[in-house]
């Protein structure tokens, strides 16, 4: 009709717009969510801090500067710029301890989420694939675990195994298992009725091949979202266990146990209490924001 369309039809060969690759499409939806991108940036910074803690931290997390006990943050009266966020009761630099603490939190998050993800996928696939008695047995156990508040169950496990970081991580991974089992089972059951699974089976694919090569890749989207959110609850639970004295033991620089140590100084030194909690909040918030963004980007129902 107009000249521009005429020129375009004559000059440029008529082709359909190239469809976005799945990755591009994912990024298109993900990046339109500002909160999610902010979460991603914060997580990247924290991961950087965790990996390069030795270089980023101004001091060692365990060095005690006896002449600088309970020093306030640098911008306050009596503060010192070599201890930007102040020092604790035995003269350790809070900023350095927070940076080293991120290493622990991220590590625990990775270990706990990976362990529960692997176990959960395995149990969920088995339950969804074989159905029947196996399914009922697995789901009953999952229901029992869901009946207990996760923190309480984690506390119970740590109380029995003894307080330590490893046991806390183990407890957290056991506690978060039910969500992964349920998600994988539901997704597996949905995929099982699809034609492509039936045809693979007809061709003669073994159950293992069907489960891990045909079905699993198609169940990953909700699992990725859950794993991201699992990170935030792992970090939160770890800090709670540390705060209760059931996680990392002093003098390990862990955010929750730093808070527990600071309890007696609430009245005298607000910074000892404020910064570790702020780190926990920011990290957990970042993972929750990114999880929400991932859910929106990966959930086909919301894409319309």
């Amino acid at each position, binding site marked *: 009709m107009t000249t521009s369309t005429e020129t375009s039809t004559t000059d440029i060969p008529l082709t359909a717009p190239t469809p976005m690759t799945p990755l591009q499409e994912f990024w298109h939806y993900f990046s339109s969510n500002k909160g999610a991108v902010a979460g991603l940036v914060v997580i990247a910074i924290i991961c950087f801090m965790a990996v390069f803690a030795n270089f980023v931290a101004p001091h060692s997390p365990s060095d005690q500067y006896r002449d600088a006990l309970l020093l306030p943050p640098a911008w306050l009266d009596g503060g010192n710029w070599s201890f930007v966020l102040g020092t604790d009761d035995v003269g350790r630099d809070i900023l350095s301890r927070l940076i080293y603490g991120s290493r622990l939190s991220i590590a625990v998050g990775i270990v706990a989420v990976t362990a529960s993800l692997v176990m959960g996928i395995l149990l969920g696939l088995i339950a969804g694939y074989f159905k029947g008695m196996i399914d009922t047995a697995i789901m009953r156990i999952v229901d029992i675990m869901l009946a207990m*508040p996760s923190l309480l169950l984690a506390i*119970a496990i740590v109380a029995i195994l003894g307080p330590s970081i490893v046991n806390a991580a183990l407890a957290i991974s056991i506690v978060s298992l039910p969500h992964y089992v349920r998600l994988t089972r539901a997704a597996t059951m949905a995929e099982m009725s699809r034609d492509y699974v039936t045809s693979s089976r007809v061709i003669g694919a073994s159950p293992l091949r069907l489960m891990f090569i045909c079905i699993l890749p198609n169940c990953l989207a909700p699992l990725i979202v859950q794993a991201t959110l699992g990170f935030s609850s792992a970090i939160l639970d770890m800090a709670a266990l540390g705060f209760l004295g059931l996680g990392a033991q002093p003098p390990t620089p862990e955010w929750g146990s730093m*808070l527990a140590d600071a309890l007696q100084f609430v009245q005298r030194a607000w910074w000892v209490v404020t910064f570790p*909690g702020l780190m*926990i*909040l920011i990290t957990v918030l970042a993972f929750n924001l990114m999880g929400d963004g991932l859910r929106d980007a990966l959930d086909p129902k919301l894409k319309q």
Partner: protein
Amino acid sequence: MFQFIFRRLSLVIPTFLGITLLTFTLIRLIPGDPIEVMAGERGVSAERHAELSAQLGFDQPLYVQYYHYVTGVLQGDLGNSLITREPVMKEFLTLFPATIELAVCAAIFAILIGLPAGIFAAVKRGTVIDHSVMTFSLTGYSMPIFWWALLLMLVFSVNLGWTPVSGRIDVVYWIDDVTGFMLIDSLLSDEAGAFTSAVSHLILPSIVLGTIPMAVIARMTRSSMLEVLSEDYIRTARAKGIAPWRVIVIHALRNALIPVITVIGLQVGILLSGAILTETVFAWPGIGKWLIESIGRRDYPVVQGGILIVACIIIVVNLLVDITYGIVNPRIRHSR
């Protein structure tokens, strides 16, 4: 209806048995011999060991021990505390009102703030109000509540001096334990100012414990309201010229509330586990603090019994929520 309730009840039995199996096993997973754990550092002679073992039934096969455990539990016998020698059930019953009081106040706080905030956000969808409600609720949802407790304490108790730091009531008051609920007991007592003191002690812990449920309720209310507000009958109601607030409160909210009520019911677990942290920070003498202290003292019967009771409370509440849901919504009642 009865069929529905019966079916739902029958599902509880395996879950209950599973939980008793869990607590039964947990206590046996403790490294070391249970009798030596009980005796502590003093140790026991071989004869005394055999005697105790027979007395406590440890010499019997595991399934017999489990049978005795479950029958004991069903009769309310959870064993005795190793430290105080009191029955676990008795200790629990004296401490439980404190936790209920705190949890109920926290739930009221969560509903009073979360519900209107969610409705408001849904009605003003896409505006600054909506965004700030959602930001606040995500922050509340991500909150490490033990830190939140310390922060509020720092500001309102230490710096402003508005609220007391810890405990249930000022030490100057001596309140008779009638119901176990400090708010009621302090009203019943003749001491002037006791009730105000009890209320001021409750404010911060309730806010702290209610924060996460509040965030969850606000998010759920918003999404449920948004769904209902886009229904045809809402448009019809508006077209008929019904006042906007009436459409929202009478027409939309009623239907939007169903999923919200379920979510409120599910908060009981969050409230009870949050109570562990909140009670520890505020030195609130409830079951959360009791459990943590028992873990520290290696008082295993208390840990075992406490976990079992809390899990049972949650099962019962979930059951009640399910049944209420079935009564409210016939579609659920009649689905298989």
